[in-house]
């Protein structure tokens, strides 16, 4: 027999209590993993942000547009390598619940600035040639069973009317941080129609994407760009892509903070659940610990027995939670309205957080029982009635 066998037998002493504790931890770990996965999904855009890309938008708000004429001026700023632009199109495809980003972009340079969007060269060439063509992410192609040459009709809201596009390209994301659910089409296609229907809206873009030569120069380049348009009707605010993405998340900041807070409250609850079990177990075994000490078991052995039991239960709970979380995250992704989270995966970092949390809970929950067991003298321990 080894010490671990004694730990196992102690855990199995009250099977129902142990099973309920493990299940309690498991459910809490599952909730923690799912909540953290949601939070991670929100931040995935930030993770994928490139250090050499700046975003120049209207200084007041992202919803106000900038003149197309700024492109050449920005391109002339020292440190700028390439400038492209995009415009939020919105619109409805099939119905309002079918959400995914639809962006009118500058066709020549946009995909060079975003090398993480992998488009086959022949498809790119076709896209550039045809004004009403579009490139969609492979997730969109799969979701709507779209192939090259298929037509997509989008009902415009910001840009009213019916908009017809032909799928000429399907991009693959370079990595998991890249959103595979976007739709890109020619800004010129939209602008041409605006010139006819609402000329005052023509010649405007949503934001500029500025590729810079040296990411270390991002602050100076940003300042230089904003300085160019200071005191103009269209002042700019230029920031790194990461800061731009964070600005988007700021609107949901309170929710994310609450979710983060709740996920850590859950850890606290797990600690109380396991702590309660460990305190009960240790209190029942005060006499046994005294007997073991009489037999010559050292303080280290007692720490090992109590700590080992707590860690084993925490580990079993953590594994149970992980086993429950994997299918739950998949189910969550499956049943969630499409497009809410383009990348909704169980991230390794979340699993590591959960494992570390379970480990910490195991350690923390055993501290008080260990303290009590070690500070109860053998003589007093032997007097206890179990």
């Amino acid at each position, binding site marked *: 027999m080894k010490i671990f066998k*004694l730990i196992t037998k102690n855990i199995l002493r009250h099977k129902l209590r142990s099973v309920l504790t493990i299940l309690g931890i498991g459910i809490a770990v599952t909730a923690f993993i799912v909540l953290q996965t949601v939070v991670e999904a929100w931040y995935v855009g930030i993770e994928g942000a490139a250090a050499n890309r700046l975003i120049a938008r209207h200084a007041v708000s992202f919803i106000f547009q900038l003149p197309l004429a700024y492109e050449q001026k920005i391109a002339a700023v020292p440190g700028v390598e390439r400038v492209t632009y995009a415009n939020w199109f919105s619109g409805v495809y099939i119905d309002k619940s079918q959400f995914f980003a639809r962006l009118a972009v500058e066709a020549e340079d946009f995909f060079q600035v975003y090398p993480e969007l992998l488009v086959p060269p022949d498809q790119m060439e076709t896209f550039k040639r045809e004004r009403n063509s579009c490139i969609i992410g492979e997730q969109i192609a799969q979701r709507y069973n779209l192939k090259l040459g298929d037509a997509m009709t989008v009902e415009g809201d910001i840009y009213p009317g019916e908009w017809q596009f032909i799928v000429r390209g399907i991009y693959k994301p370079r990595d998991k941080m890249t959103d595979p659910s976007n739709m890109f089409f020619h800004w010129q296609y939209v602008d041409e129609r605006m010139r006819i229907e609402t000329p005052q809206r023509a010649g405007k873009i949503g934001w500029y994407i500025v590729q810079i030569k040296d990411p270390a120069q991002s602050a100076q380049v940003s300042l230089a760009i904003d300085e160019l348009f200071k005191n103009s009707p269209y002042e700019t605010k230029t920031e790194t892509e990461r800061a731009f993405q964070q600005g988007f998340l700021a609107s949901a900041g309170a929710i994310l903070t609450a979710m983060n807070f709740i996920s850590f409250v859950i850890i606290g609850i797990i600690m109380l659940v396991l702590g309660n079990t460990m305190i009960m177990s240790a209190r029942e075994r005060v006499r046994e610990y005294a007997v073991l000490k009489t037999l*010559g*078991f050292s303080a280290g052995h007692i720490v090992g027995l109590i700590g080992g039991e707590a860690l084993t239960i925490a580990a079993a709970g953590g594994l149970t939670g992980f086993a429950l979380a994997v299918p739950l995250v998949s189910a969550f992704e499956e049943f969630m309205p499409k497009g809410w989270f383009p990348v909704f995966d169980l991230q390794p970092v979340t699993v590591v957080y959960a494992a570390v949390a379970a480990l910490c809970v195991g350690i923390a929950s055993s501290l008080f029982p260990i303290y009590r067991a070690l500070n109860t003298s053998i003589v007093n321990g032997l007097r206890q009635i179990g």
Partner: protein
Amino acid sequence: MAASNSTPLIEVKEVTKSYHRDNIEIPVLREITLNVPKGEFLAFMGPSGSGKTTLLNLIAGIDRPDAGLIKVDGTDIARLSESALAQWRSSHVGFIFQFYNLLPVLTAYENVELPLLLTRLSRKEKREHVEMTLKLVGLGDRMDHYPKQLSGGQEQRVAIARAIVTDPTILLADEPTGDLDKTSATEIMTLLDRLNKEFGKTIVMVTHDPRAAEKAHKVMQLDKGELTA
């Protein structure tokens, strides 16, 4: 006070012990001095609260005296650190409790094996030791039984097997028959007598039972923390 002329295995000299309850000092032992030679079977008797169990605990190294000296086989155990004392107990003391104190989740075999977990014996050697010891106490056919599947007498025999499996220097028994019926008590005392006579074990026992004390070579009376005879 009493003393032995033989070479003492256990030497207790002017040992004093008090307990504190609510700031009140309760003297339990007053300057106890005694020697126990190797191979002795000594019984302490006396009324409740006379300090018998406290004296036994001090000799076992599970409690510490306020003053005085306790030497077992030449080691001044009062001077040992907690970890050294634990190590010393594992190799020198076999303790038999009144209420057996077996671990209910372990079989008879595993309970007896417990002290051997602290040794460097191989698995095979441990098995040989445990089987031999359980056969010695007459429980060779009850190895896989859990404490709740055993009678009180059998549980105490398992406890004795656990106490002797490491071949300790001294065997200390605190009311070993206190929770047993007459027949079981006789069996246990016969077993302890055999361990003393056949295997030369030095035994110090606390008991209220005069029949149990009859098996001892020597009986010492304690009253109000002092040896009276």
